[in-house]
């Protein structure tokens, strides 16, 4: 049964929250500035609670079941993070308070920067960007600013492998760069010949996701970085897949100049149904002056009796702010809680087991599904969701059928270079039993594809909703509970 909307639940005169009468004299409110009507719903508290509780029950989350959504790192989000972020000392502080009243908060940001530096090998980190794509934009702006500062104005070309996430070219285009797409070779690495041909004096840099969206560590990473550096370009690392390499390989050691982290993937902060995320950016010393501020810093080392004094500073040649205030502090607290609990060795173990889990599923599915780049994968891998002897079955059908078994589908149709792609990322927090149930279900669905394809094509069957009509949604465009009265054309 579909849930009514809040406007359908509304009855004139109801209210779900109340405020005290003013304890001060009422001031005049000029009629000229007041609105006539406020079209918001009117609902009692209990009905608001029931409405949103019922809505929540229509969702699949990591808390309700396995969520192997490739490139998203849907690992378990520890409950303790939700407690620490709500501590009054974190939740109830204003971003513009005098620094001496928020030493804990700035200190935490400083420590988080230090942890990220140590894990990645970079010299400086800014926590400002609000999400992965925002971090990317920041990184690309930093690369641009670096070339501009050297009066190297002709560097306008950004190389992007064909397996890259769509945000890579979009971020580059937003920064005014020209995009050149690079093909992948037969083993899923960047095609070296194509790369070298583009390495000239107009090269601004390259955006590499490593491990790539195919879940593979580029076997020529060092050569790729050298080639780009020799041409005077910079290497941008998309840290979306950092969960594969914590404590195993550091991007800066391998030649990256700038990288964004996704605290909401790698460091177990919740995805929130699509945000808020957090996308800190790490850079080498050479790029550090261009980072967006403010950055947490120690401005007085302190002594044995006195703790250090932290402050927020702006780098000298900063590209400027990319958002208001200091970044998504609430996400930083969660990520820091997680990192503190795992410690250095725990983070390494997390990555090791993320890779172990992915390889285990890949091994179990190898005989049933085509694995186009079949080698040891990192924390995820890509399978093809179709068979020659089941021509009517697409990756989408397999995905929808998985829902009938209480499993969230893998990422579909990405990366674009694999036909009918199913991108599977189990994460380290899943047990062997969960992985086995998933593998068994995938194998069972492959059988069904041959014996009863219609079962897949009409799936899901056991979910509260069937497939939704996206064409109708796009053609009729109902984007609001009521139609605007004075619809303009």
């Amino acid at each position: 049964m579909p849930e009514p909307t809040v406007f359908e639940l509304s009855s004139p005169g109801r209210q779900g929250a109340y405020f005290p009468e003013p304890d001060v004299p009422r001031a005049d409110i000029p009629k000229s500035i007041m609105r006539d009507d406020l079209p918001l719903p009117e609902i009692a508290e209990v009905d608001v609670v029931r409405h949103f509780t019922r809505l929540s029950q229509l969702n699949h989350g990591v808390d309700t079941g396995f969520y192997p959504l490739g490139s998203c790192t849907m690992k378990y989000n520890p409950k303790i993070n939700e407690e620490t972020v709500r501590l009054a000392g974190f939740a109830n502080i204003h971003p513009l308070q005098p620094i001496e009243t928020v030493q804990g908060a700035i200190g935490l940001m400083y420590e988080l920067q230090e942890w990220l530096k140590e894990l990645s090998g970079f010299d400086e980190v800014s926590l400002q960007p609000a999400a992965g794509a925002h971090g990317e934009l920041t990184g690309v702006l930093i690369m641009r600013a670096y070339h501009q500062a050297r009066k190297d104005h002709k560097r306008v070309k950004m190389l992007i492998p064909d397996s890259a996430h769509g945000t890579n070219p979009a971020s580059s285009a937003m920064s005014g760069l020209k995009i050149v797409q690079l093909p992948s070779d037969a083993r899923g690495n960047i095609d070296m010949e194509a790369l070298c041909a583009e390495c000239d004096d107009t090269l601004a840099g390259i955006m590499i996701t490593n491990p790539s969206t195919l879940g593979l560590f580029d076997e020529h990473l060092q050569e790729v970085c050298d080639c780009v550096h020799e041409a005077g370009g910079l290497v941008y690392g998309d840290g979306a897949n950092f969960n594969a390499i914590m404590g195993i390989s550091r991007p800066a050691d391998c030649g990256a100049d700038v990288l964004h982290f996704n605290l909401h993937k790698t460091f177990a902060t919740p995805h929130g149904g699509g945000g808020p995320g957090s996308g800190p950016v790490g850079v080498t010393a050479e790029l550090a002056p261009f980072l967006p501020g403010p950055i947490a810093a120690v401005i007085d080392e302190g002594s044995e009796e006195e703790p250090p004094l932290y402050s927020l500073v702006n780098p000298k040649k900063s590209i400027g702010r990319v958002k208001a205030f200091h970044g998504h502090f609430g996400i930083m607290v969660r990520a820091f809680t997680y990192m503190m609990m795992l410690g250095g060795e725990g983070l390494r173990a997390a990555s090791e087991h993320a890779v172990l889990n992915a390889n285990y599923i890949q091994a179990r599915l190898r005989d049933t599904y085509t694995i186009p780049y079949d080698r040891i994968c990192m924390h995820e891998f890509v399978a093809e969701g179709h068979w020659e002897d089941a021509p009517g079955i697409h990756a989408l059908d397999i995905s929808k059928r998985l829902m009938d078994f209480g499993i969230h589908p893998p990422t579909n149709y990405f990366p674009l270079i694999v036909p009918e792609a199913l991108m599977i990322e189990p994460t380290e927090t899943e047990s062997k039993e969960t992985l086995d149930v998933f593998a068994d279900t995938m194998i069972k669905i492959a059988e069904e594809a041959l014996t009863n394809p219609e079962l897949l094509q009409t799936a899901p069957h056991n979910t509260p909703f069937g497939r939704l009509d996206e064409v109708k949604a796009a053609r009729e465009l109902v984007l609001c509970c009521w139609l605007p009265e004075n619809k303009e054309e």
Partner: protein
Amino acid sequence: MNFPKELKYTKNDEWVRVEGDDGTIGITDYAQDQLSDIVFVEYLVDVGESIDKGEAFATVESVKAAADVYMPVTGEVIAINEDLPDAPESINSDPYGEAWLIKIKISDPAELDDLLDADAIENLERDH
């Protein structure tokens, strides 16, 4: 897939119907099939503008893809199909008729020689 003999085609799946100095432009049956259900058409040019060959003049969108439509030849826009934005699905049902995109005054008829005929485009799409 249907490619009417009287039309000229580009490799990018635009078609042109030439009548005197005027050309009518649309997208092929193959293109609409690849895009599947078309939900939106947007014009990037206005009547009266002169547009070079190869420049995008419209965007056609389905729920899964967005395709730019490019000028097969250089010309001045003399009409755009005002009905199309309200009935984008007609591109799926009648790509060579009702769902034409723009009419132009062709600047250089010699450019027409670079276009493909129906047989050539059919062979091309068969190889895809």
